[in-house]
């Protein structure tokens, strides 16, 4: 069991270094460390993230968006170990600026050969990147309904207004 865990840990670590660099830049460093190497199955796991030549002493010194990107890179690294047929992301892009939203959706695009991604979002930049948009709304108070939005022929402002108003 320990060997299986150590093997998975080392694969996730490799994935993490690749994924982190695609969300940050190729010059950025990160690492995953087992704090208690004698007892890997019970050990706490430390995350080291050093974006853009900065020298943060710990994760807590990173900004809100940098932390989200780092945690997302780790979650994707776990996912890559055994890609599930589908993956749901619920408003994970909320703390990201537009440039990081683009990196985020581009990364998902590379994974989408193997899995379907369902992305819930309020972010217009994300809405532009997906293949189809489903709008959820309540025509009657308290009752949800959905309809597909084909936006290839609408202007951006109109998609959202079409759904939310």
């Amino acid at each position, binding site marked *: 069991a320990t060997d299986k865990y150590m093997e998975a840990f080392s694969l996730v670590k490799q994935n993490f270094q690749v994924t982190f660099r695609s969300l940050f830049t190729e010059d950025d460093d990160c690492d995953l460390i087992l704090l208690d190497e004698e007892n890997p199955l019970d050990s706490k796991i430390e995350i080291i993230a050093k974006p853009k030549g900065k020298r943060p002493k710990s994760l807590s010194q990173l900004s809100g968006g940098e932390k989200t990107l780092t945690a997302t890179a780790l979650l994707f690294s*776990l996912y890559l170990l055994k890609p599930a047929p*589908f993956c749901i*992301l*619920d408003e994970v892009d909320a703390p990201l600026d537009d440039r990081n939203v683009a990196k985020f959706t581009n990364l998902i695009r590379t994974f989408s*050969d193997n899995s379907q*991604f369902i992305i*819930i979002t309020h972010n217009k930049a994300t809405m532009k990147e997906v293949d189809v948009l489903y*709008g959820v709304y309540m025509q009657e108070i308290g009752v*949800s*309904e959905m309809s597909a939005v084909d936006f290839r022929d609408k202007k951006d402002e109109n998609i959202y207004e079409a759904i939310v108003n």
Partner: protein
Amino acid sequence: MRLKSLEIRGFKSFANKTIIHFNEPMIGIVGPNGSGKSNIVDSIRWVLGEQKSKELRLESMGDVIFNGTKNRKKGGMAQVTLSFENTRNILPTEYQEVAISRILYRSGESEYRLNDVKCRLKDITNLFMDSGIGSNSYAIIELGMVDDILADKDNARRKMFEQAA
């Protein structure tokens, strides 16, 4: 294995029967606050066997049934059906298409079905054992999980590694 469709009826705010088809790699879900987007995520967790009402934002499991508004009385049951195309024969079954359903009646009676045949939850979890899906796999990523990874609350990181390994 690809998702084919999700049908929700009487589950939380989806009082009416609602169907989403999944034909694309990247699917966006948008809509105003409180319209029902996260309820869709809950319905997928639920149909895959989630037992913890807290994970579904409920005080008790009975709260998944549409609880009425001032204009419409409460529902008598909640039903969710998730259909997959068994491409690449990831699922060990002779069917080309697999539909799993979960139903809960207000009386408390509940039922699981596999291609419309009653079964036990165990039959469904066995079916999905190796495919990376289950109600607690990495198929679902929300901001709450990002926070748990960052704070490492209750050893969240180690638990996620164990599940993935």
